């Protein structure tokens, strides 16, 4: 009975998605650990890291899709939430270095030593304590999103204006984190991590574990998102997206609905960032750069907005392209490719890859119940 409801809720495409993720989660570790390098089934650690990175991006994309695809909040500042989560994790990892920094200082991270800080800034207190750090992973982006959203939605800043001030938000943070006086390592950011919960971040085992965790996190995110969008709350979100003032006249407090989804989306982005940092091994202000946030939006657009699966797919496709195009003779063309893709997607397939797929399918089956249709 319950499972039935679950299946209904996830609907076909979602199941495929979850199945694929499960497959990855099982096969990649086996391929990496069980098969020796050289074996055709071997998955190099490099690939594990790369996939892990993609998955965190996919999470960010799903979060963004929740706000944009379903509620029409086009945030050009989601990179900021991602980065904040990342910094929270990074600060924990920095504190774990302990005396193993090049200066062997018991408390202070290296960059603080050579900028001769005398003691640990208050912002860093408690980050050596993992649960606190994890709490901040959620709170930092969550609170920012709450305050920002509360102001913006209450005063009915919508559409373009909202997008632009979210951009201003991430830009301001971008500049702020570059300042060394902020005490977050300035341009160099946080790096040279040693271990997480006592496990060496470089170790193969740790990497694989992180990968598995990321898979689980993405699945969790997806399921939660599905539950949300298929509840009445989700229906109201779509109503807001399609006809905001009409929804108001039905007696819905649009600003509350938006605020909830925005904060939630920000927190998911934060978690994604937190998983991202230990895998790529660095977090630096450039994660706040407006271009990054826009790129994330593009992932969603490419995959198909308003279809959670599509968002994840888009993140994968675009980032794989990036990896592929930035090697060898292709290097000088990859910006053309990326730019071209954006234009192509917006012109040729406004509903993204999945949308296109639906249109083709739509000719045969009635599309009313498909999420792809919902996103129209």
């Amino acid at each position: 009975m319950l499972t039935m409801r679950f299946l209904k809720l996830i609907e076909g495409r979602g199941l495929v998605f979850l199945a694929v993720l499960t497959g990855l989660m099982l096969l990649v570790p086996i391929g990496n650990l069980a098969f020796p390098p050289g074996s055709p089934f071997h998955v190099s650690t490099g690939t594990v890291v790369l996939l892990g990175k993609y998955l965190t991006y996919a999470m960010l994309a799903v979060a963004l899709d929740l706000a944009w695809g379903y509620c029409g909040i086009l945030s050009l500042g989601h990179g900021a939430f991602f980065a904040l989560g990342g910094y929270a994790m990074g600060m924990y990892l920095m504190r774990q270095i302990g005396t193993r920094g090049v200066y062997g200082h018991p408390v202070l991270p290296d960059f603080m030593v050579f900028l001769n800080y005398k003691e640990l800034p208050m912002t860093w207190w408690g980050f050596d304590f993992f649960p606190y750090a994890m709490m901040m992973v959620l709170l930092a982006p969550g609170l920012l999103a709450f305050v920002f959203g509360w102001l913006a939605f209450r005063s009915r800043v919508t559409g373009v204006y909202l997008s632009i001030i979210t951009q201003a938000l991430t830009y301001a943070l971008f500049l702020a984190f570059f300042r060394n006086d902020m005490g977050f390592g300035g341009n160099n950011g946080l790096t040279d991590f040693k271990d997480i919960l006592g496990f060496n971040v470089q170790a193969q085992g740790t990497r694989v574990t992180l990968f598995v965790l990321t898979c689980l996190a993405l699945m969790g995110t997806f399921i939660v998102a599905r539950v949300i969008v298929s509840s009445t709350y989700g229906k109201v979100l779509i109503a807001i997206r399609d006809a905001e003032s009409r929804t108001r006249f039905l007696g819905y407090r649009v600003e509350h609905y938006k605020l909830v989804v925005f904060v939630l989306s920000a927190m998911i982005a934060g978690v994604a960032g937190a998983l991202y940092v230990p895998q790529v091994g660095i977090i630096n202000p450039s994660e706040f750069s407006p271009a990054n946030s826009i790129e994330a939006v593009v992932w969603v657009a490419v995959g198909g907005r308003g279809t959670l699966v599509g968002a994840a797919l888009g993140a994968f496709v675009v980032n794989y392209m990036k990896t592929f195009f930035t090697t060898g003779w292709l290097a000088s063309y990859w910006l053309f490719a990326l730019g071209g893709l954006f234009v192509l997607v917006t012109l040729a397939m406004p509903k993204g890859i999945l949308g296109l797929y639906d249109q083709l399918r739509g000719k045969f089956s009635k599309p009313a119940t498909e999420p792809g249709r919902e996103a129209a």
Partner: protein
Amino acid sequence: MTNMSFTRRGVLGAALGGAAVMASGVRPVFAQGAPIKVGILHSLSGTMAISETTLKDVMLMLIEQQNAKGGLLGRKLEAVVVDPASNWPLFAEKARELISQHKVSATFGCWTSVSRKSVLPVFKELNNILFYPVQYEGEESERNVFYTGAAPNQQAIPAVDYLMSKDGGEAKRWVLAGTDYVYPRTTNKILEAYLLAKGVAKEDIMINYTPFGHSDWQTIVSDIKKFGSAGKKTAVVSTINGDANVPFYKELGNQGIKATDIPVVAFSVGEEELAGIDTKPLVGHLAAWNYFQSVKNPVNEAFIKSWKAFKKNDKAVTNDPMEAHVIGFNMWVKAVEKVGTVDIDKVIDTLPGIEAPNLTGGVSKMLPNHHITKPVLIGEVRGDGQFDVVWQTKDLVPGDAWTDHLEGSKDLEADWVTLKCGNYNTKLKKCG
């Protein structure tokens, strides 16, 4: 595909390289054996492309010339170019790709400190070699990295000494202006400590930081002007980075700050940057480097000649980081030839002590701390965008990884030969 494009270029470039074999256009015959791959990790797009692209080209040229000479250990050298696109995580990803996928024997790359910091863990984990060609803040010495750019003591401090000298104009009052990131921060800390030690009063030092790509310099330049009118000879030490320099110098020129009144000595402005500025108003302002294109000697002239040929552009300029790559590459080649293999560990252990001629007429040496010896030159900007060398150190200055002017690092030293440690604490007599 990659290889294709480069071997084709190879023929051409080598021919320009002017090797006897090539004159006839015959391909050199390589002994059996897979080519030796060399990674090139420089941003070709994004904000840093402005500086890094030429470094990629110089590496391609060097590799071609080496191939023209018959390659290395009778094997052909093959360049693997990747574009980290000025995106720091991507640097790490690409480094991993170069090492574990393309199996490169050494990598030449990075410009900003953060890009180096981002790839460091990868090079350590996968144990490979990185040659880092840019002047930097020091405070680092890693087993897998060889720093061919200047450490602070090979650039900043001699420059200040010069400005204090009679010929430098006996500066008494100092403005330390920099972009707000680690290199300027550290350099300025070192300089401040040094100046105070030299008896400069605290109120005679003004420190100012600006963001990357800062474009509106009106206020700061006029502040400098004001600061400079306290009746003491004033000099500006600029660690302003890349893009921000052009508007800065344009503003200096417009507000009529002449080098004779307030000289500005820059650590990040070379021929490349000046190429973007009309230098007539800037004549007499200074730069401190370990190499200038205008240095007169046969080695340098030959290099410039082949570079211009390679770029098919008679206006192409050379600069300090390019020289660093030249030195680094030659050192690597020598080391490989010496041990007769590209085995990473062997090469790492052989490199210290290896000598290679630099382009300023001297012979640089790789030190146990993985930094090299370099001369320090002070150049004055000329009207034509080149520099006149007005002062240079008698002999080569050894690069010091850990400066003696900072609290944290004065007891540290790096030695990968005897101590096998990058941060040996001489007080506690232990590593790290």
